[in-house]
């Protein structure tokens, strides 16, 4: 995999998360991701693998990532002035076939791809509402970048108490649902939305390579067996997934 060294142009806190910006003049589709790491080979023997992150935003020139510091890979990324990124990877959200108004649902750091998705839907003139679910008020600080979004917190300290689904007043008014978050949340979204409406889910599975080479990022599919979430996904139509 080819990695490109880029400078971090800006870094800011967003709730408990970090938003990091770097110059990327190429094309980016909403729902695509990058493999990213702090500094380049050979300093990267530990942590060894790059980490996958969804694009948070892209204005044609500058890309941004929104991430939560979970372990060493993200801790190093949080401090780095120079990072290495792959080109945009994977299949993102399919936007053409949406009928009527769209609901964008994000859970925790899974709100990341909704920003660029909302931007693109606005450009296409597709009406949409954004709903965000967080654990608590401090993490919900990340909602500031989503003016007008509905919100829920698990501890009830802000917005509707409960999950992101509890923040949606009437799910039936939407012709399309796009969601990203922890896999149990996505399974709940799939159940709630049902089979009759367009529902696309951005799944999170552990990755080795990010470009389809290792077969590590397996997601079970209804047609049998597994597919690679880095190439066939990370965005899947809900009905294709076997969960």
């Amino acid at each position, binding site marked *: *995999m080819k990695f490109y060294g880029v400078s971090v142009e800006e870094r800011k806190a967003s709730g408990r998360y970090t938003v990091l910006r770097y110059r990327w003049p190429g094309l980016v589709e909403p729902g695509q991701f990058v493999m990213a790491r702090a500094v380049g*080979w050979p300093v990267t023997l530990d942590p060894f693998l790059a980490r996958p992150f969804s694009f948070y935003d892209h204005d044609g020139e500058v890309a941004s990532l929104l991430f939560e510091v979970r372990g060493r890979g993200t801790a190093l990324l949080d401090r780095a002035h120079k990072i290495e990124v792959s080109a945009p990877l994977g299949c993102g959200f399919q936007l053409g076939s949406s009928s009527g108004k769209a609901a964008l649902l994000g859970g925790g750091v899974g709100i990341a791809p909704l920003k660029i998705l909302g931007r693109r839907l606005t450009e296409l003139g597709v009406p949409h509402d954004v709903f965000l679910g967080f654990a608590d008020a401090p993490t919900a600080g990340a909602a500031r970048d989503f003016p007008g979004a509905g919100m829920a917190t698990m501890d009830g300290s802000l917005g509707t108490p409960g999950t992101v689904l509890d923040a949606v007043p009437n799910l039936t008014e939407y012709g399309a649902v796009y969601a990203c978050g922890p896999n149990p949340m996505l399974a709940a979204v799939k159940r709630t939305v049902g089979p009759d409406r367009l529902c696309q889910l951005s799944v999170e599975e*552990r990755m080795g*390579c990010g470009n389809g080479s*290792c*077969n590590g990022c397996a997601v079970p599919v209804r047609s049998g*067996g*597994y597919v690679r979430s880095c190439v066939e996904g990370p965005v899947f139509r809900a009905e294709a997934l076997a969960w």
Partner: protein
Amino acid sequence: MVVRERKTETRLAVELCGIPLRTPLIPASGTLTKEALGEVEGVYGAMLPKTTTPAPRAGNPPPRVAETYAGMVNSIGLQNPGVERFLEGLDAFDIGLPLFVSAAGDTLEEFGALCERLGADERISAIELNLSCPNVECGGLTFCAGPASVEEVVAVCRRATGKPIFAKLTFEGVVENARAAESAGADALTIMNTIPALTIDAHRREALVRGGLSGPAIKPVALRAVYDVCGAVEVPVIGSGGVTSGIDVAEFMLAGATAVQIGTASFVRDPKEILSELASYLDKVGLDTADLMGALSS
């Protein structure tokens, strides 16, 4: 310096079982997908897709990969579409290089039938036998559990095809197994595969992945295996295990390897850089790849 004036092309070329390779680098089986071929143009001397088996295999449930210091542990479970669909899609791997195919079966009979099927396909230049899979007729011990088993399976494959066959062996008992493979008619040996390993997430108190360790962490082990095997057999040896830089490639060739496979490293680096590091090294020492083989000063 005559050597310095030779074109990089000729300087990198090697020959493996009579097959000319533009460079000594080969992708390790299971680590390069057809979707990524565009990125590796000019790097490799041959193509080698993921292992194929007689019937489709779904592979293991996730998690399948976990990281370790300087490497990773994988438990993919030989996910593949089965040999018939594999052959239907094989043209995608035809990028004008010799095409090697990795094969595995559950039984001796399956290995034989698979080699016959692959051997009859004109697109394929050689067959690599992935012998680290379990032999279901021997209580699940792998086909490289010991020299008798290696000799038996290689002999079956030898009878099934006239194409060059490479026996890919694991670390354990590698020298004995290498001799057995050679005497059963293997044309070359791929040394080695991943090493059994486990990762645990202490915070969640759960075992993550029980599988095979690969990457720079295993390089010295693979280097030793290649060195020892090269001292014990006449057939060419293909090095595999942790190769991550051009200098690593040179080390494997100095240990006696004719060609070298790049696996896990291609997930974290551009393999083009590995080739250009090798070219710079050759410039510096004033040698061709073909001269490197086993050329340790004693």
